[in-house]
C-alpha cells in the first residue's frame, strides 16, 4: 500500500507541478475528471450493499415487509434500534457471538505459536530433509477442506470432539498451518544471520533465541498472520456447519435463521451486521497488515 501511495503522489507528480503553469494544471485535472467521477460512482456503488444492510437492520419489523431500506433515507424518524435490542435480549445471538470469539481467538493464538516454532525450525535450524519437508508442507496448501471433512467427522465422533469449540479450533489451526508456516518462514529467513549467530555464540539456547529474538523481530509478519487468520475463522461457515450442532458461531446462527424463516429480515439483518462489524472493525484498524499478509502470499 505504501509503495502505491508513493507512486500516486509521487516524485514524478511533484516535478511536473513545479514547472507547470496554472492553466495547464487545471486542464490536466479536468482531463482526469472523468476518472475521478467514475471512481467516485464506483466507490458509492460498492458501499451501497453494506450500507443497505445497515439501514435494513434499523427498520421496524412492520416497515421491512412493505418497503425498501432506501425509504428510510427520506423518513429517518422511522429508524429504530429496536431490532438490535431484541437481538441482544435473545440469548442465542449473544451466545453465538461469544462462541465465535472463542473459536477465532483460540485458533489464532495456537496457530501463531505452533507455526512460528515450526517456521523458525525451517528457517534457522539445520536438519536432514529440511527443505524437502518444507516444500511438502507448502504443498499441503493444495488440499481443499472438503477432502478432510468426512474422515475428521468420523474421527471427532469417536474421540468426543464433535460439537465442541475445541474441535473447531483444532481444525482451523491445522488448515491454517501451511500458509502460516510459509509466511513466517520466509519472513524469519530474512532476519540477519549475524544476530542469531552472535546469540548462539553467547550461549543462548534455541528456545531463548526464539522467544527473545525471533518473535519480536517477526512481529509484523506475525501480526499479519494473526489478523488474516482471525478474520478467516471468524467468517467461517463450512467447518462449523460440519463439526457442530449446538455449538454455533454467529455464521451458523444466522444461517439457521435464514433457512428456517428466511423472511424474518428484522432478525437476520441486524445479526448479519453485527457479525460483519467485528471483522470490518479489525480490518479497518489493521488494513495495512492485512494487505501485506495477502501480498506476501500471492505475489512474492
Amino acid at each position, binding site marked *: 500500500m505504501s509503495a502505491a501511495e508513493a507512486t500516486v503522489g509521487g516524485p514524478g507528480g511533484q516535478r511536473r507541478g513545479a514547472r507547470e503553469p496554472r492553466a495547464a494544471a487545471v486542464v490536466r485535472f479536468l482531463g482526469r475528471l472523468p476518472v475521478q467521477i467514475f471512481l467516485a460512482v464506483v466507490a458509492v456503488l460498492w458501499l451501497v450493499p453494506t450500507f443497505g444492510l445497515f439501514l435494513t437492520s434499523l427498520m421496524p419489523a412492520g416497515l421491512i415487509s412493505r418497503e425498501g431500506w432506501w425509504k428510510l433515507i427520506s423518513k429517518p424518524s422511522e429508524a429504530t434500534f429496536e431490532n438490535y435490542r431484541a437481538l441482544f435480549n435473545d440469548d442465542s445471538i449473544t451466545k453465538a457471538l461469544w462462541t465465535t470469539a472463542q473459536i477465532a481467538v483460540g485458533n489464532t493464538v495456537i496457530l501463531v505459536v505452533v507455526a512460528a516454532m515450526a517456521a523458525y525450525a525451517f528457517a534457522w*535450524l539445520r536438519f536432514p530433509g529440511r527443505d524437502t519437508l518444507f516444500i511438502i508442507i507448502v504443498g499441503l496448501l493444495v488440499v481443499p477442506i472438503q*477432502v478432510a471433512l468426512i474422515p475428521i467427522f468420523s474421527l471427532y465422533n469417536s474421540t468426543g470432539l464433535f460439537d465442541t469449540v475445541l474441535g473447531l479450533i483444532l481444525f482451523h489451526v491445522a488448515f491454517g498451518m501451511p500458509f502460516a508456516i510459509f509466511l513466517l518462514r520466509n519472513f524469519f529467513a530474512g532476519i540477519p544471520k549475524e544476530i542469531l549467530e552472535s546469540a548462539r555464540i553467547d550461549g543462548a539456547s534455541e528456545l531463548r533465541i526464539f522467544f527473545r529474538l525471533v518473535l519480536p523481530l517477526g512481529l509484523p509478519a506475525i501480526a499479519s498472520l494473526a489478523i488474516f487468520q482471525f478474520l478467516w475463522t471468524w467468517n467461517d461457515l463450512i467447518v462449523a456447519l460440519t463439526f457442530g450442532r449446538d455449538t454455533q458461531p454467529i455464521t451458523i446462527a444466522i444461517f439457521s435463521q435464514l433457512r428456517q424463516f428466511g423472511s424474518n429480515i428484522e432478525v437476520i439483518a441486524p445479526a448479519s451486521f453485527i457479525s460483519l462489524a467485528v471483522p470490518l472493525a479489525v480490518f479497518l484498524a489493521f488494513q495495512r497488515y492485512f494487505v501485506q499478509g495477502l501480498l506476501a502470499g500471492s505475489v512474492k
Partner: protein
Amino acid sequence: MAAGAEAQAPRPASAGSLRWRRHLVTGVFLAPALVFLGVWIVYPTIRTVIRSFYDREGSTFVGLDNYETLFTSDTLVKAIENNALWIAVVPAFVTAIGLIFAVLTERVRWAVAFKIVVFMPMAISMFAAGVIWHIMDEKNPDRGAVNAAIKVVRDAVVPSGVLSRGDASTPELTGSPNRGFVLQTPLRPGETALMGLTAIPPAEMPEDAEQAATPRPRPGAITGVVWRDFRPGGGRPGVVEPGEQGIPGATVELRDSGGQVVKEAKTGPDGAFAFEDLDPGSYRTAISADTFAEPFTGVSWLGPKLITPAVMIAYIWVWAGFAMVVIAAGLSAIEREVLEAARTDGATERQVFWRITVPMLAPVLSVVFITMIINVLKVFDIVLSVAPGSSQDDANVIALAMWRTAFSGVNDFGLGSAIATFLFILVIPFLLLNVRRFRREAGT
C-alpha cells in the same frame, strides 16, 4: 569465550550428546505443527481417497462406481456445469475489474480510500456478503434494491401501466387492454368524452383515486373522464355517479379524423383530462394501451434461472477488491522510467497501457486469474446464503454437492468422498501453475 571454545573442541561424548540435544530441540519446534498437519490434513486426504472407492456404508468395495454416479446423477452434473460456468465467467471479470480499478486509481489522489472501500467486502464473510445480496436481490421492486434500481431505469424508458385489465362499460367504447379502447363517438372541440371501464378489481385501483368528475365542456377543448363505471347494486353505465372513482394516471390519446394520435394526456386523480386549444375538426378519444402495460414486477434474481448469475454478482463484489490490491502492487513495481520513456517517445496512454503495462503485468494478472479459478472451484458459503432453499438445486456447485451428499439427506460418505477427491483433482493443476509462477518470480 571459554564456554564457546569448549563447545568447539571435539570431545566424542559431548559432541554426540550435543547433536542429540539439537535434534531434540528441532523436534520440539517441529512436532506440534507436524502433528496438526499429519492428523488433520495428510491422514484425511488418504482416508477420503480410499473411502471414495467404497459404498455408502463403507463395507463394500465398489471401485469407480461413485465416480460414475458423479458424472451421471442429475444434481451432480448440474453442479459440475455450474462450476464450469463460474470458471468461465468469474475469474475473467474479477481480474479485468481489478485491473481497471488498479490502473485508474494510479491517477487519483484518494486511491487509498478507494481501495479500502472496494476491498472491504473481503473482510465481511462470504456468508454475510451473501445475506446482503440475498436481501438486495428480492423480486419485489418495492423492497429489493436491485429491482428498485432497474424499475427506475425502466420506467424512464417504458412507462408502466396503471391497471392490468378492464372492459368498456358502454358500447361506444370499443377495444381491449391490449390495443386500447377507442371512443367511437366523433367529438368536436367543446364537447366531452365519457370513457367508463368495468371489470377492474377494487384492489387494483390506484391509491390516489378520487370521486370521478363529470367533465364540463370548454370552448376550443375536448374534456373528458376515465372512470371506474361500477356501482355495487346497480347504477347506470355510461353516467358518472357518486361513489364511482376516477382512474388517475391513465394515458388518453386524442386522435384526428384519420386516426392519427395528435395529443396525449394523463388523467388526474378524479379521472379527468382535457385537450386544449384544438383546431376545429372531428376527433376521437382513446384510452391508450399503455394504461394497461404490465407494471414492472421485478426480475426474479433468486429464482432458478437467474440464481447463478445473482450469486456470481455477489461474489465479484467481494473479490474485485482482492484483484485490485494485488494488481496495484504489481503495477507499482513496474518502473516509472520505462513508462515515462515511452510517453516521451510519443506513445499515447492507450499504447502505453496495452503495449507496455499489460505485458509487464502479465505474471501478476495470471496469478490473480489462477487464484480466482481455484477459489471459484471451491465456492460454497455464498451459494448457501444467496440462494433460497427453492433454488439451491439450480445454484448447486461441487463443494456444496459434496457437503449435501455427505452430511445432509443421503449421508453417503462413499459418494461424498468421491466428490471431494474429484474437487481435489480439479484444484491441483491450477495450484501447481501458481506455485510455478511464485518460484519463477521469487527466483528460487
